[in-house]
């Protein structure tokens, strides 16, 4: 089966400091891959690079295939014509990501006018249908409203309607529920899981919310300082995180759920390195409880630690006992 997204050795740099280093990622059709990490870990750069939405100043290298189509080989004009049918992009803040002075129906309809060659009224009908598929009540009326007249949840539905309008094989969602309140967030999540079953699109979902990951994702990739440090099926990652950073991320969440009032919340000590100031060896070593001399000397590569789980760590948790005995 062709992957919805197959990104190989992706590098993104802004001037001297690389934001993403040699990240490879696959999203299968119908699969939700959660890309998690702290602010500045490079997850948004990776996602935007995949959608070719980074500013011109960013240097991107690597190979990106979407549904078997090598999009890095497409020239700009050709990519522009095909991009909406290949990649749907859902932004974090739908209020800012929708044009404030254009009715939302027109904004959805533009896609059909530009790519399906439809006239104004046919595009409007298609737009209304697209809104209806997002379970927007009275879509014909909503189409005539401006973004500021809609609720946050409705705006995000419009955003998703645009992203899915041409049924692209890949959706990229950049923290689309972060700005929403909890109940609206739950509605959007259930809508998305319903839609992906129907459409078979693969979804790359960027988030730092472990709750969202647990609810929606099939597969998880953890980013730290521009690298993917661990990836695997969501159950494996949650049950047996191999990388100490993943462990730390999960503990912050576990404490929130089970921690008694008054006990301090766990947090990963220290802060991530500034771009361009990464230490030699493993970037996480300065914050890592398991760090040893090898960690500060050489950077670990991703290696299998379970059936389908990979971690970039010299002392992965699953093998912690043996590694401890050997040294």
């Amino acid at each position: 089966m062709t992957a919805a997204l197959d990104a190989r050795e992706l590098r993104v740099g802004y001037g001297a400091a690389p934001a993403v280093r040699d990240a490879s990622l696959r999203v299968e059709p119908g699969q939700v891959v959660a890309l998690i990490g702290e602010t500045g870990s490079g997850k948004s750069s990776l996602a935007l690079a995949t959608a070719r939405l980074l500013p011109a100043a960013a240097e991107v290298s690597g190979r990106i295939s979407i549904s078997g189509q090598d999009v890095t080989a497409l020239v700009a004009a050709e990519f522009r014509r095909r991009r909406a049918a290949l990649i749907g992009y859902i932004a974090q803040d739908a209020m800012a990501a929708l044009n404030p002075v254009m009715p939302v129906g027109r904004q959805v309809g533009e896609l059909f006018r530009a790519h399906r060659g439809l006239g104004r009224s046919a595009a409007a009908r298609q737009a209304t249908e697209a809104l209806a598929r997002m379970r927007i009540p009275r879509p014909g009326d909503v189409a005539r409203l401006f973004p500021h007249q809609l609720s946050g949840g409705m705006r995000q539905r419009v955003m998703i309607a645009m992203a899915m309008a041409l049924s692209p094989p890949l959706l990229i969602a950049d923290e689309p529920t972060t700005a929403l309140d909890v109940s609206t967030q739950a509605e959007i999540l259930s809508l998305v899981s319903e839609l992906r079953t129907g459409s078979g699109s693969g979804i790359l979902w960027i988030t730092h919310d472990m709750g969202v990951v647990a609810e929606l994702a099939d597969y998880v990739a953890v980013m730290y300082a521009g690298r993917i440090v661990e990836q695997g099926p969501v159950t494996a990652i949650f049950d047996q995180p191999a990388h100490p950073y993943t462990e730390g991320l999960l503990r912050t969440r576990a404490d929130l759920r089970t921690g008694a009032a008054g006990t301090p919340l766990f947090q990963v000590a220290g802060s991530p390195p500034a771009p361009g100031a990464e230490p030699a060896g493993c970037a996480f070593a300065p914050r890592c409880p398991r760090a040893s001399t090898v960690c500060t000397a050489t950077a670990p590569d991703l290696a299998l630690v379970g059936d389908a789980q990979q971690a970039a760590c010299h002392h992965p948790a699953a093998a912690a006992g043996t590694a401890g005995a050997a040294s």
Partner: protein
Amino acid sequence: MARTLIRRVGYGLIAVLGVAVLAFVLEFVVPGDPARAIAPRAGSAEVLRNIRLQLHLNQPLAVQFADYFWGLLHGNLGTSYVQRQPVATLIGQRLAATGWLALAGVAAEVVIGGALGVAATMFRRVRVAVGAVNLVLLSLPQFVVGLALLLVFGFQLHAAPVTGGAGAAQIVLPALTLGLVGAPWYAQIVADQMQDSLASPYVRTAVAKGLSNRYILRRHVLRNVLSPAITMVGMDLGAYLSGVVTVEVVFGWPGIGLLAVNSLQNLDRPVIMGTVIVGAVAVVAFNLLADVVRMQVDPRTRQELT
């Protein structure tokens, strides 16, 4: 919306009235005797007294004030001390000339400033040049630009008339003067708004939708640039209609500005008051009009105003 408009018109009337009262009081604070300005140079005390009697200048301020505003309430702007004609007629004769000049001047500003702003945003190479042009234009006073244009196009190239008057040929240079002096403001606002808009998430969305650059510029960027420019057009139209004094003097353009200057020199109080009131009404009316137009262009402002 209708209720908002009525309220705004009400506020506008209060503002105009306030300006009128202030102007009336100021006329009396300013030293100078209208009777002396009107009387012949060697006029006797008798003549001066007759003039004062005739113009009610010997009445106390409160009475004159009441007389004037009673007349104003009935739509009567009074009679010119000097020209012995109703102020309304004098202003009416000149309003059209000033109106045309204001429109042509604002059009020139928008075209020149808009072009500079768009060029500075779209073409990196001319950005510095546009900035320099802006700075030069900003630092030049209107009369310098006006005189320079008059010298070059009027006297050197004989491409424009230098005789004054309010004809179609005569309007070019004064309008161009207003346009050149006003352009940097528009260039700046257009460039700022365009840069904001181009860097905005909604333009990124439009790019992700695979729309063409030209379409994105026309449909998504420019509509968002319009709103502040409209406000500025309204402010300029109002200001210019109250008389573009310098430009009218330099080019001998028979507009309200010229009338205002002459009436100030002669202490022709009713005419001064008339020009001030017409100016205030113009400022209020065009600001309101600009807001109404802006509501059509930018739906977000509809809520702001209510």
